[in-house]
């Protein structure tokens, strides 16, 4: 059970500037203190009776102040810890950036040396929370990438890290107790690499070997529950956090599944289209103007058999059509059931020479597709009409069964891609929003 109520401090430190009594929970290690009353920054050895020394001071209280109660004891990061210090930090090169860090120390002395996870910290920026601990292993040169590059992969975890930010910190406020001189952190050069839900940070002082920290994203609700607070008491979350997990976390699995489905679909399409097409009938007709008194004329093709349900592709061609038109209504008739399929096509072709240049328009061919024609014996009835006053035209009709239906394939492909596309788009939108806050935005377009 968490105990948000502060326990009795091990000692008190008197602020030399305003005489406020400051609690000290870690008698053995705390040496630096921030006065919550006058904002003075002190050095002291608590419990010895020696006077505290003022080292510096922060001018005014930063708003909104700590969102978490100092002194609270909670279970966090696998430890029972006490929240002992609070800092507001910013960047030397960016006066607008500001975040808050909460120092966590073991609530009770731990046997042996302090675990490597410590110092343990909570950081909050724009309502996004990170639990920061010392990285047990830090990346060296791995594979083709090194940490000097802007992106690389952790060989152990497989996490793909990308450079997120590079800055020098400044301390704008400090309250509570600290076991190191936090003002010295202003000499640090900090690099951050993101791989949600993690943010790996290197802190380098001068030319010394960098120290690595691994931060893990915490949902605000988790933080609120840990400290027994209401969610609305915490800063409102804005934008997307550097290490916030995005939607579509199972994207690799979806990608794999979609790839397999597309392969299966393509294989099915190839199998279907592999069955040879079968020309059913090819016949030529001569189309003339109807006899006087007649309104229409009809021509009948040879009968043919369709062995099984199929798509029938019909091609019409008028090879000698020039500067006039032929229109034909074609009716496919099942001789057993009487069922009919009908379509109409116009063929027109014009050509000439104008200003010494040859031109042409129209087409001497036309095609139609009759879908799912059942097996049976069929013939075509053709009802042609020609341009009045023109000579006879030759009309050729050919029908082929078993035509490959590529439109079905592309339609099915779109159906398969719908969900992956939505997930991909949501992920991309989320990532674009995340990287807006970074100087290393891979989505930024050159202006």
């Amino acid at each position: 059970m968490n105990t948000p109520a502060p326990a009795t401090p091990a000692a008190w430190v008197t602020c030399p500037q305003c005489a406020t009594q400051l609690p000290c929970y870690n008698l053995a290690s705390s040496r630096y203190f921030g006065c919550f009353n006058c904002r003075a920054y002190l050095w002291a050895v608590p419990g010895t009776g020696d006077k505290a020394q003022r080292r510096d001071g922060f001018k005014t209280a930063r708003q909104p102040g700590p969102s978490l109660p100092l002194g609270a004891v909670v279970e966090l990061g696998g430890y029972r810890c006490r929240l002992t210090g609070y800092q507001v930090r910013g960047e030397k090169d960016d006066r607008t950036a500001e975040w808050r860090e909460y120092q966590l120390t073991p609530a009770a002395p731990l046997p042996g040396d302090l675990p490597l996870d410590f110092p343990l910290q909570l950081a909050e920026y724009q309502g996004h929370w990170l639990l920061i601990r010392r990285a047990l292993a830090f990346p060296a040169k791995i594979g083709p990438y090194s940490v000097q590059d802007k992106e690389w992969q952790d060989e152990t975890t497989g996490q793909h890290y990308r450079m997120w930010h590079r800055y020098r910190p400044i301390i704008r406020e400090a309250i509570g107790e600290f076991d190191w001189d936090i003002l010295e952190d202003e000499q640090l050069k900090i690099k951050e690499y993101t791989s949600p839900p993690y943010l790996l940070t290197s802190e380098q002082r001068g030319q010394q070997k960098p120290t690595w920290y691994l931060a893990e994203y915490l949902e605000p609700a988790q933080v609120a529950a840990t400290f027994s607070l209401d969610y609305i008491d915490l800063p409102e979350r804005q934008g997307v956090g550097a290490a916030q997990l995005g939607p579509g976390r199972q994207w690799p699995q979806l990608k794999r599944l979609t790839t397999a489905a597309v392969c299966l679909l393509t294989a099915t399409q190839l199998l279907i289209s592999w069955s040879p097409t079968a020309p059913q009938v090819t016949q030529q007709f001569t189309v003339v103007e109807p006899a006087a008194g007649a309104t229409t004329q009809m021509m009948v093709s040879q009968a043919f058999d369709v062995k099984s349900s199929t798509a029938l592709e019909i091609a019409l061609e008028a090879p000698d059509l020039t500067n006039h038109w032929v229109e034909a209504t074609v009716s496919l008739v099942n001789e057993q059931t009487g069922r009919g399929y009908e379509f109409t096509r116009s063929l027109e072709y014009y050509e000439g020479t104008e200003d010494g240049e040859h031109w042409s328009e129209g087409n001497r061919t036309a095609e139609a597709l009759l879908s799912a024609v059942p097996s049976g014996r069929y013939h075509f009835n053709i009802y042609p009409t020609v341009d009045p006053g023109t000579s006879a035209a030759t009309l050729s009709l050919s029908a082929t069964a078993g035509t490959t239906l590529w439109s079905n394939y592309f339609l099915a492909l779109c159906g398969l891609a719908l969900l992956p596309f939505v997930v991909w788009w949501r992920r991309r939108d989320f990532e674009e929003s995340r990287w807006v806050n970074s100087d290393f935005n891979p989505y930024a377009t050159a202006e």
Partner: protein
Amino acid sequence: MPDFLRPYWLAARTWPLYTGLVLLLLLGFGWLGLRGTRLLGDDNETAETANGGAGNSLTGRGGSHGGHGTFYHK
């Protein structure tokens, strides 16, 4: 289960609804392909019943040939 299929099985378990829809889609696609059914448009302009019952010409030059496509046996 062969090792190469294991990632796909895991992926299918992660996305069970999508997997079900994909299987339905593949089956439907195969069945329609074998029947020769085109989903995006059929040039057939009649609206007859399967038994050759009365139907109307939907489009085309119906004015001049109205309904003739039905029962012209040889």
